[in-house]
C-alpha cells in the first residue's frame, strides 16, 4: 500500500510537470508536440521487453508483439517529429 501511494505521488507530480511544461508550447509547434509526446509514450517498450523474457511461451509471444508495436510508436514518432521540426526555419 505504501509503495502504491509513493507511485501515485510520482504520478501526481508528473501530471503537474506535464501540464506546466506542455502549456508553454506555442500553437506553431502543436503538431510536432503531438507526434513527439506520442513517441515517448512508447516507453511501454520497456515493459514489453520484460514480458518477452518470461519463461511462458504465450507471454513471450505477447511480449514480442508488444515490443514491435511500441517500437513502431517510438521510432516512427521520433523520426516523423524530427522530419517536421527540420522544416521549421527562421528568416535569414
Amino acid at each position, binding site marked *: 500500500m505504501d509503495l502504491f501511494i509513493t507511485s501515485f505521488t510520482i504520478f501526481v507530480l508528473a501530471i503537474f510537470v506535464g501540464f506546466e511544461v506542455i502549456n508553454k508550447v506555442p500553437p506553431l509547434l502543436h*503538431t510536432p508536440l503531438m*507526434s513527439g509526446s506520442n513517441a515517448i509514450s512508447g516507453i*511501454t517498450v520497456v515493459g514489453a521487453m520484460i514480458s*518477452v523474457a518470461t519463461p511462458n511461451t504465450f507471454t513471450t509471444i*505477447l*511480449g514480442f*508483439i508488444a515490443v514491435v508495436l511500441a517500437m513502431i510508436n517510438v521510432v516512427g*514518432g521520433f523520426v516523423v517529429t524530427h522530419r517536421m521540426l527540420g522544416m521549421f526555419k527562421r528568416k535569414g
Partner: protein
Amino acid sequence: MQSALINIAYLIASVLFIVGLIKLAHPRTAVQGNLLGAIGMLIAIVATLLDRGIIAAGANGYLVIFAGLLVGSIIGTLMAVKVQMTAMPQMVALLNGFGGGASILVAGAALVDAKDPNLQLTVATVASGIIGAVTFWGSLVAFAKLQDIISDRFGRFSGQQFFNAAMLLSSFGLGAWIVADPTVTYAYWLLVVAASVLGVFIVTPIGGADMPVAIALLNSYSGLAGAATGFVLNNNGLIITGSLVGASGIILSQIMCKAMNRSLANVLFGGMGTLPTGGPTADQVYGGKVKSATAEEIVMLFENARRVVIVPGYGMAVSQAQHAVRDLTTILEDRGIEVEFAIHPVAGRMPGHMNVLLAEADIEYDKMKELDEINPTFEQTDVAVVIGANDVVNPVARTDPSSPIAGMPILNVDKARTVVVIKRSLSPGFAGIPNPLFAADNTLMFFADGKKAILDLIGALKAA
C-alpha cells in the same frame, strides 16, 4: 544494485523527456528537444537489457527482443519517412494506437505471469486493458476515417450511447472479476474484447472534422494506459512518461475545444457533423451578391498592394498548395509587398497543421502569425488571400449568437481592404453553414482548386 542502476537510468530518461518537452516549446530548440527525448528512450531501453529476468532468459530472450526492436524500428522509420505532411493526423492516430496496443499486451502478460498478484497489480492491469483497448481500436477507427477507408456513416446506429455504456459496464464487471480472482486470466481477454468494441463504436459517430480532438484525447489515453502499465510493473519510468503524455493530450484537446468554442462532451457525443438547422440558408446569404474574379483581376489588386495576408485553411492541405503558396509569396515579396500568414488555431484538421505545411514549403516561421497578433493588422492590409479556409474566417461567429460557431474567435479578414477567397465552390466548411464573407462587398471569389488557383495567379503575375 542492478535494479537500482536500472531505476536510475529510468529517472535519467524521465528527466530527458521533461527537458525535451521544455525545449519543444521554442522552434529554435525543438529539434534538440526531440533528440533529447530519443536519447532518453535509448537509455531506458539499454538499461532494461540489464534486467535480472532478461539476463536469465539468456541468448534466446535477447534474440527475440532484438528482433522485435529491429522490426519495430524498421516499420516505424519507413512510416515516418514515407508519410506525407498532409497525412500527419492519420499518422499520429496510427502510432498512438500501437502504443495503446502494446499496453494491452504488456499488462496481459504481467497478469498471466504474476505469481502472487496483489490489488495494485490487478487494478492497474484492468485499467491498462480497458484504456489500452479503447486507445488501440479508437485510434484505428480514427485512422480509417481520416484515410477515407471507412465512411462517416459507418458504425452509427440508434441507441449507440446505451450500447457503449453497456460495453463500458461489461468491461468494469469483468475487471471486478479479475480483481476478485486474478487467476481467471481469460476474463482479461474478454475485457479487452469488450473495451475494443467500445473503442470502435465510441469513435465511429464522431464527425470527420472532429477527429483531431478525438486523436488528442486518444493520445492522452495512450499515456494513461502507459502509466497504468507502470503501476502494473511498479515502474516509475512508465508512470512518469505516461503522465506527461496524458497531460499533453488533454491540454491539446482543451485548446482545440476552446478555439472552436465547444465543450469536450459536445465534440465527443454532440450532434455536430450533421447539418445544422435554422439560420439563414445559402440562398438567402449568397443570392446574387457573390462576385467572382479572374486571375488577371486579382493580379491587378496585388499590383497596388503594399501588404498582403495569406489565410490558409483545410483546402490548402487537401490541394497540397503549400509549395505554390511559397512561390507566390516569393514573387510578391520580390515586388516589395509585405506578406504575412494568419494561422487560426483550428485551421486545417489538427492543431498546428498549417504551420507544418507552410514550414514544409520553406516559409519562415516568423511570418506565421497567431490570431491575437494578426487580427489588429487586417485594417492595414490591402489584400487578404483566403486559401481553402472557411469556418475560421466566418464573421457569423461574431454576429449571430444562435450560429453553431457563435463565439468562436475568428480571423477578421473582412476588415481588410479587399478579400480574395480561393475555393472550389460555395459549399460550406466543416461547420456546415453559409459564410456571408463570400457575399461581402469587398470580397472577390476565385473558384478553383487551391493549388491550381495559386499557380494561375503566379502565371498571371509573371505575364503582367
